[in-house]
């Protein structure tokens, strides 16, 4: 298959599309992590005393914890003292509207194809843009405000809605949940906050774009979404990051709190810089995402399309506490070259008649390693709980690996659990069938892969689905061997 190899080489040598940096003066903390740095961050953000204390406590706990080693990923040891924990783009005045925003930042968004003005005018999506660690602009706040919806940067929420933040922060992902959540709790710099009041259906997709911008900057986002009784919100998160030679650390925490009858749909397209074709550079993505279906009949649905990062360590999970509550996890994880992904979900069934559904589609190409790791736990009280899991792996070429680690833990005999798994290879036959109809090899792979991932892509909001399809094709072009 020399022709395939040629195409493979040609395409894998394509430069990362978003590999550029903007020249914005940054206002950074010195490298390293200690109590002084945390005080510096807290002071920079003008935080109340309780929050500083919260951070310091988290830091104390973190120092006693160890980096987890159970994931199926390998990387050189991270020197946590060699990371810059705070970097904010310098701005003379706080912007009140888009016109006041640094034009360099606006240009950055335009390159990413998410010009705020365009977004605002054309799509009706409220975008809370995060560059490095500070939110620079929030749109549609007024429209949302009329419905009582709060959608703002985490820092702003700390200032304006301290009671909500204080009550719910850490309620789904406790500080000491894991090594990275503890680290995040100590040093998080910004993120998004969202509150949907009782009975309100959020009329637009809420969206955040994260982007790592300054060299050697760790990015520690924190997102908190609270859906009050009977409310509904669909939240989109999209990531791209510029090319870097040194590995960058990203340890975010996302918490979702759903009350009675509330529904939250959280969609992610992740395209952090994956490193070059030799496996040099790339983002380390250690994320803790968890939703709590606190109230009866609440529902949380995670959809993710993971194409980037050198290393992905991520398990968006649901705790189904309320009776009749429901959790869903739809995932496509693509790895190419030397990328490593260990991703999956946890569904913890506590309430009666709780339901969960897991659909995971892994695609491995190049020399990459792709693991699904999932846990379904039916607790004693979870009478009539049901779970359906489907874990499929697609291999391209013969140098990559696909692994599946499902854990099932059942303490109630009325539970019904189904688990299906398949492993397949893109067949020469499938490719040839496409070629014979006049479809070139790249389009054939894109067609086959998108077909394979369709069940997950269908879960994404329209505008995201198109972007995700392009990303999948781009990540895998020519990877058949």
């Amino acid at each position, binding site marked *: *298959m020399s022709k395939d190899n040629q195409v493979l080489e040609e395409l894998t040598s394509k430069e990362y599309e978003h590999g550029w940096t903007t020249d914005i003066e940054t206002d950074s903390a010195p490298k390293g992590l200690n109590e002084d740095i945390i005080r510096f961050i807290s002071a920079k953000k003008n935080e109340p005393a309780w929050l500083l204390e919260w951070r310091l406590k988290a830091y104390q706990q973190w120092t006693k914890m160890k980096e987890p080693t159970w994931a199926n990923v390998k990387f050189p040891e991270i020197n946590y003292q060699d990371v810059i924990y705070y970097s904010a783009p310098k701005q003379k005045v706080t912007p009140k509207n888009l016109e006041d925003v640094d034009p360099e930042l606006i240009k950055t968004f335009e390159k990413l194809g998410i010009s705020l003005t365009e977004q605002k005018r054309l799509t009706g999506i409220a975008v809370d843009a995060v560059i490095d660690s500070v939110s620079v602009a929030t749109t549609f706040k007024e429209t949302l405000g009329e419905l009582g919806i709060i959608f703002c940067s985490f820092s702003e929420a700390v200032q304006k809605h301290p009671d909500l933040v204080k009550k719910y922060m850490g309620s789904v992902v406790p500080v000491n949940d894991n090594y990275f959540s503890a680290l995040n709790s100590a040093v998080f710099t910004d993120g998004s906050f969202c509150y949907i009041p009782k009975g309100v259906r959020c009329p637009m997709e809420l969206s955040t774009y994260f982007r790592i911008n300054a060299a050697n900057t760790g990015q520690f986002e924190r997102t908190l979404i609270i859906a009050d009784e009977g409310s509904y919100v669909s939240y989109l998160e999209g990531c791209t990051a510029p090319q870097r030679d040194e590995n960058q650390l990203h340890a975010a925490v996302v918490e979702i709190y759903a009350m009675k009858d509330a529904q939250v749909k959280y969609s992610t397209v992740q395209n952090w810089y994956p490193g070059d074709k030799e496996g040099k550079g790339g983002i380390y993505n250690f994320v803790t995402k968890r939703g709590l279906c606190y109230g009866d009949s609440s529902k949380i649905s995670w959809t993710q399309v993971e194409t980037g990062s050198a290393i992905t360590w991520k398990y968006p999970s649901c705790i189904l506490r309320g009776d009749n509550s429901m959790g869903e996890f739809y995932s496509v994880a693509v790895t190419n070259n030397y990328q490593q992904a260990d991703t999956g979900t946890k569904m913890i069934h506590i309430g009666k008649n709780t339901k969960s559904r897991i659909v995971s589609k892994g695609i491995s190409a190049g020399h990459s390693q792709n693991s699904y790791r999932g846990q379904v736990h039916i607790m004693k009280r979870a009478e009539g709980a049901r779970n359906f899991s489907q874990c499929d792996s697609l291999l391209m070429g013969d140098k990559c690996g696909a692994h599946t680690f499902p854990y099932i833990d059942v303490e109630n005999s009325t539970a019904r659990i189904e688990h299906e798994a398949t492993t397949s290879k893109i067949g020469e*036959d499938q490719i040839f069938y496409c070629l*014979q*109809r006049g*479809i070139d090899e790249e*389009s054939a792979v894109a067609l*086959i892969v*998108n*077909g394979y991932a369709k069940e997950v892509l269908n879960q994404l909001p329209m505008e995201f689905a198109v972007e995700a399809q392009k990303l999948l094709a781009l990540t895998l072009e020519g990877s058949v061997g």
Partner: protein
Amino acid sequence: MLTIKNLQAKIGEKQILNGINLEVKPGEVHAIMGPNGSGKSTLASVLAGREEYEVTGGEVSFEGKDLLEMAPEDRAREGVFLAFQYPVEIPGVSTINFMKTAVNQIREYRGQPTLDAVSFLGVMKEKMKLVEIDQALLNRALNEGFSGGEKKRNEIFQMAMLEPKLAVLDETDSGLDIDALKIVSNGVNKLRNKSNAVIVVTHYQRLLDYIVPDFVHVLYKGKIVKSGTKELALELEAKGYDWIKEEVSVL
């Protein structure tokens, strides 16, 4: 249209085609018959450009161009269509989506404007009628869970959509009951015209009752050992292949 001269091909170490000669002109229907393992499907695969087969000698010219030099997708774009003996399943991709991609890539290759969804659907409806296929089938994932008859009908639908100059039908009759066979043959007959040609590869005569060939060739041990008109097919049906084998061994 198609000229095959002394074509030889092997798969792995096994030589299968040992010097095929064939001339196909526009408007003609050629039937290639022969016992199992005589190289019928190999010939179809080599014409379509399947990589597992290595051409070890001879030449093939299609519309004055060297077919063997072309990539498989370019052969398709130049107008060579293969109806597969075993159509491949592609989960999650509907026939409609698949055909839209194919039609537009071929149009691009030919320097024609691509079809938008509306015009594509218009063309599709017309062809659906022609080959008597239901849209529900075309909405489903390509060949996934299709019956044998549905798969073959879907191949003929694709042929209708792509309007090839040369269609090679590889054992299109295998696995079909008589009703399905009629529908499929009807479709092929409706698509025939003065400027296109069909090569029918088949083991049995019965398909040729419906798709009537101008020429019948018997393939044996990788060579065309006998050519004739449709009467030859009837003779084969009546007498089997043994007399051909004997004739060859005498030579």
